[in-house]
């Protein structure tokens, strides 16, 4: 158990000399430990489809929770974000100046857009693998549309690459 945690802590440290990366590594280590413990329980041997979806849901949220520590500038910022997530504030700003407020129609449009992109993701995957049997011209049209969207909506600001922190 300790060996596993140590390996994950070191793999976290490999990403940068900051406590946030170590905690991110330890979190993943604890997830693996938890998974090993739960999978040994007889009561958890469920083959139903709904159980698979619950597991996917849990894994997704645990990984996303880990990203908080991975991306935060420091441990205090990460804790603040965790605290905000678990504090109910219907009129509060989700993230200052970035996402919007609950009740703001703009926020719902953004959520709809995100869901739209999630919905077309399998289609785009098939497109990238050339599995949709589209004609030459249609393929060019799709690629041209995507390129135009990237030019217009791309995040072209100066964004420093996370691994440049070394």
């Amino acid at each position: 158990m300790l060996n596993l945690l140590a390996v994950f802590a070191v793999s976290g440290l490999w990403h940068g000399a900051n406590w946030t990366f170590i905690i991110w590594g330890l979190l993943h280590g604890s997830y693996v430990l938890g998974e090993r413990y739960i999978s040994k329980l007889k009561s958890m041997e469920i083959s139903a489809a709904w159980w698979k979806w619950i597991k996917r849901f849990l894994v997704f949220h645990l990984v996303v929770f880990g990203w908080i520590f991975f991306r935060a500038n420091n441990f205090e910022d990460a804790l603040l974000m965790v605290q905000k997530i678990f504090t109910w504030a219907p009129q509060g700003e989700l993230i200052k100046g970035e996402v919007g407020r609950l009740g703001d129609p703009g926020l719902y449009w953004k959520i709809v857009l995100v869901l739209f992109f999630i919905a077309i993701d399998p289609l785009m995957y098939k497109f990238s693998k050339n599995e949709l049997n589209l004609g030459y011209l249609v393929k060019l049209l799709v690629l041209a549309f995507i390129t135009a969207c990237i030019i217009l909506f791309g995040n072209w600001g100066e964004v420093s690459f996370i691994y440049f922190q070394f």
Partner: protein
Amino acid sequence: MKRLIRTTTIFIGFTLVFYLLMVYLLNEISYENRRAICVAIPYMPKKGGQEMSMFSDFQKRTNHDIIVLGSSHAYRGYDPDIFDSLGLDLFNMGSSSQHPMASWVLLNRFIKPGNVKLVILDVYDRTFELEGMDCTTRLIQHVPSDAAAFDLFTAEPDLRSFNSFTTRLMIRNLPSEYEAPGYVRDGYCSLTDTLDTLKAEDRSNFIPNTTMFDHLEKSLRWLEMNKIPCVVVSHPQPLVPTWINYHHEFRRRLDPMLDQYQVKYYDMTGEAWLRAEEHFADENHLNQAGVTIFNQRLVGLLRDDGYLQEHGK
């Protein structure tokens, strides 16, 4: 090879059509009284505000005793009415976050040697550090000539300035979408608030954007070549302890350049004759009371140093 050329040409053609169609539609569709393009693209400014009023005033009359270039320190810090009361005709060509690169384009495109007697370049240390795209996209939308807008795009070639330039061409006849609060005349916007408590951001290390210093030098060289008298001013700011070193580092870069071109520098950062709570509207800008004191003092200094003796009315 033929197929590659044909595919590339069709692809570029389709991309251009989609791109222009999207820019057009996003400018036509409104969402909550804002053009959809301003909602969808964070750096795309609304049309109007101080820049639009300023250029509209400038086109009415281009001859002035003094023209000021700079950031919000400039357009909120030099009041044409005060200069007028002192017998001087001042136009304020400052704009939001205006950096030396943008000042250079404005100087080069709109200031003619016979039209001005003194140019004041208001230098704010922060604008020598920033990327400056916010100012560039705003000016591209509002400058009165396509050539100047194109110069701004080529000075900072980037897909954001390109998108801003395309939008400019699409909304050429669009009227102002909002008025600048506190706009007085000739580019000047006044503030009447007072600062309750000074909450200064941390400014410890000055990380220069060398392109900005290069463009300041271009401006100084151009002014020298065209024999237009020029002074450099740093608008008053409350001198927060963490800003002292920052400003000193800025000056270490600036002073040799000013010495080279023999340009007088009036550095009013942290001047004791202004009090944060009484003369400032926020951490960066003077209120009307502060502007009055600053402008009177500056005119006095300029007169003492001989810059305005033969230029005044």
